[in-house]
C-alpha cells in the first residue's frame, strides 16, 4: 500500500503533469501512461482507470479535446487528446503557481533544518 502522504502529493500534481504532456504534443491515453512512467522513473506508474478521470476533468473544463485519429492501413482508429488554447494558458498558469508553491514549501523546510 503506497504511503498516504505520497499518494496525496501525486494526486495534487498529476493533473498538471498530464496537461503539460498534452500541451507538448497531441497524444493517446496509452502513450500518456508510458510517458508518465518513463519520465518519472516509475514513480508515476498509473493504471488506466486513474488516468481517465483526469482526462475527463480536463476535457469537461475545456482544456483538452478528444479526436479520433484514423489509423494507417488496417490499424484501428485511436482516441487522441490535444490541448486547446484555454488549456495552454492554464498550463502556463499552473506552472507559475507550482514554482511559487514549491518555493514556499522549501522556505518552511529550510527553516526547520536550520534549527
Amino acid at each position, binding site marked *: 500500500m503506497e504511503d498516504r502522504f505520497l499518494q496525496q502529493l501525486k494526486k495534487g500534481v498529476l493533473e498538471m503533469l498530464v496537461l503539460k504532456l498534452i500541451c507538448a504534443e497531441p497524444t493517446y491515453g496509452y502513450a500518456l501512461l508510458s510517458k508518465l512512467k518513463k519520465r518519472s522513473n516509475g514513480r508515476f506508474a498509473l493504471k*488506466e482507470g486513474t488516468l481517465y478521470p483526469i482526462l475527463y476533468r480536463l476535457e469537461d473544463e475545456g482544456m483538452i479535446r478528444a479526436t479520433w485519429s484514423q*489509423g494507417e492501413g488496417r*490499424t484501428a482508429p485511436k482516441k487522441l487528446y490535444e490541448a486547446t488554447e484555454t488549456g495552454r494558458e492554464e498550463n502556463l498558469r499552473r506552472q507559475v503557481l507550482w514554482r511559487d508553491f514549491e518555493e514556499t514549501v522549501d522556505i518552511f523546510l529550510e527553516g526547520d533544518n536550520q534549527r
Partner: protein
Amino acid sequence: MTESEKKRKRYLRGVRRRLNLPKDVKERVMSDFVSAISARAEAGMTDEEIFAEYGSPKMAAADLNEQMKEYTYQKSPLRFVFLTIAVVSGGWLVLNKLVMWLCGAIVGAALYPSKSASVGIIGGADGPTAIFVTAKSSFDWDVFLMLLLLVIGVTGFLCLRRCKRKP
C-alpha cells in the same frame, strides 16, 4: 471479421457489461479502453498478452470500477423506505386478499358444492332481493391502492439502487 477482432469484441463486451458507471461515463471509458487496446496491439503486443495484462473482463471491469469510484453508481439508503412500502403492501395483498379468497373458496366449495351462482340468491330468484344481494361493486379500491403502492415501492427500490454520485 477476423478471429482476433471477434476475440477483442467479446472481451470488450464482457468489460462493458460489468462497468458500474452512468451511461455517458461508460461510453467515454470504453472509447478510451478500445483505443488503449489498439495502441498496445500496434506496439507489438498480441491479444493474449494484452488480455493477460488486464486480466479477465471481470477483473478489468472491477479494476476500472475501483479506480473510477467517484463516478460509479451508489445505492441510496432511501431505497429501504420503498422496500418497506413494497413489502407492507405486498404482504397486505397476500394476507387479506389471497388468503381470504382461498378460505372463502374452500368454505364455499364445502358448504355449496354446486355452482356458486346459487350463493347469491336469497329470498327467491325472481324477487328484487336477489338483485340486491348479488349486486356488488366489482372494483376493490383497497386492492387497487395496495397494488399501486406495491408498484411504487418496487420501482423506487430498483431505481434507488443506481444513483449517480454527487460531484
